[in-house]
């Protein structure tokens, strides 16, 4: 009851801060006219453009929905593949020293290269379709999940493993019933970080090589000085990112029943 009240109070503060922000924005642009509309469009223009872009494919050739769908398709396929391969890879690297010795050198080289740097290589390998961008996102998402699941497993408390050993648990049982559950909070954090990486990398990839997607829409609008569309694109990116993070937080809560440890 008490925490709920507190939560409502914080919600109120958040809402007020956003409202004040928008009001100042409006004051600077439409309200007092201090900033010209071709430099920064006013909030009501943005709302207008947003509604219009819901059904109007002009000027760059796609409705908001089409772009968003294209972006999500690329992001989620790359991200999904990244975590599906990254989590097990991090786990076995941490658990089996031989695999660590084999994979680690390559991984350490790859991890320091920012995802965006892969774009030119991937474009020349796989063109500007879904595949090249999904591959770029796959790499960024995988690096983040590997690092987190690796450290999660490595941080398993020795005493937890000892309890298992003295009960006579096999190596496989120690891994699946102690190390992995105890690494779950870090693995989930890895999934969250990876999502952030995937989403930012996606927009960068679409700015450079694409025929649709939110990043593409922004890039095209920038070319014809439609800053209102650019800002609509930014808002959509922000909202979608927040929604996806919220979704993962829900999954995290369902998975980590014992709380954070």
């Amino acid at each position: 009851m008490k925490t709920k009240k507190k939560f409502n109070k914080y919600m109120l503060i958040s809402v007020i801060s956003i409202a004040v922000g928008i009001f100042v924005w409006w004051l600077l642009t439409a309200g007092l006219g201090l900033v010209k509309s071709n430099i920064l469009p006013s909030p009501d223009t943005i709302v207008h453009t947003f509604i219009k872009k819901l059904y109007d494919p002009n000027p760059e050739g796609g409705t908001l929905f089409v772009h968003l769908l294209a972006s999500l398709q690329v992001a989620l396929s790359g991200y999904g593949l990244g975590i599906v391969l990254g989590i097990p890879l991090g786990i076995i690297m941490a658990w089996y020293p031989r695999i660590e010795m084999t994979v680690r050198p390559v991984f350490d080289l790859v991890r320091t290269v920012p995802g965006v740097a892969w774009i030119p290589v991937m474009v020349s390998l796989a063109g500007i379709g879904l595949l090249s961008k999904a591959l770029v996102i796959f790499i960024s998402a995988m690096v983040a999940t590997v690092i987190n699941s690796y450290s999660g497993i490595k941080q398993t408390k020795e005493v937890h493993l000892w309890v298992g050993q003295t009960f006579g648990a096999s190596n496989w049982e120690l891994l699946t019933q102690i190390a992995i559950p105890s690494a779950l909070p870090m693995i989930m954090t890895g999934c969250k970080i990876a999502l952030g990486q995937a989403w930012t990398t996606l927009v960068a990839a679409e700015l450079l090589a694409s025929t649709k997607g939110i990043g593409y829409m922004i890039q095209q609008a920038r070319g014809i000085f439609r800053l209102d569309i650019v800002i609509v694109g930014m808002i959509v990116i922000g909202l979608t990112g927040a929604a996806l993070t919220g979704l993962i937080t829900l999954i995290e809560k369902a998975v980590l029943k014992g709380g954070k440890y």
Partner: protein
Amino acid sequence: MQGKKEAKVKVQNLTKKFGDLLVLDDLNFEVQDGEFLCIVGPTGCGKTTFLNTLTKLYVPTAGEILVNGIPVDPKKQNISYIFQEYSAYPWLTIKENVKWGLKIKKVPEKEAEESAAEMLDIVGLTKFADYYPSQISVSMLQRVVIARAFATKPELLLMDEPYGQLDIDLRFRLEDELLKLWERTKTTVLFITHNIEEAVYLGQNIMVLTNKPTSIKTVIQNPLPLPRDVMAQDFVELREHVTELIKWW
């Protein structure tokens, strides 16, 4: 003691070195079935190394440890170990924690459920069966661990200063609880502590270790009947005697 009966635990020439550092120096002793043996010694004398070698968490440099006449192996023998640190699994509920050892030992689900319920009842945690460790107090956590250790009905129970971090009041309560469980289950207990009062309160026999390199100084029989009174004259005398042995050299 029990004459011709085969010893439960038989330790022969047990030696452990970490590099050049000799920690355990040629230990030889026997523990009888159902015995409650307390092991005391000066701080840093290698008590934990001793238990960890005994359960094969550490590989001994030399010597042999036999349980029921065969070399110790946690996969074959039913051993439980209660560690100094809190070792309840935070991702499992209290009941799942208590059932964990039974699951590893492939005890059928129904039977495991019954054993866990019984143990939870004994340590007074039935109401908290579905809680997670983060939701209960430290003293309850240690009782979860004790319940988990006893649930598998171990033939050998090893305890490494399990109450070292608890306050005195709570320690007495848990010690009494432990004695009740021991009398009920007739399991063999090796209990390590640096607290001499605790050793005299619990142990049938008290093994005194020397400083590093650790060897056995002596084993004292404790004739006092249970339950013991820490304020009684004979209790205090025995406690002083053990204290003298530890700081004598």
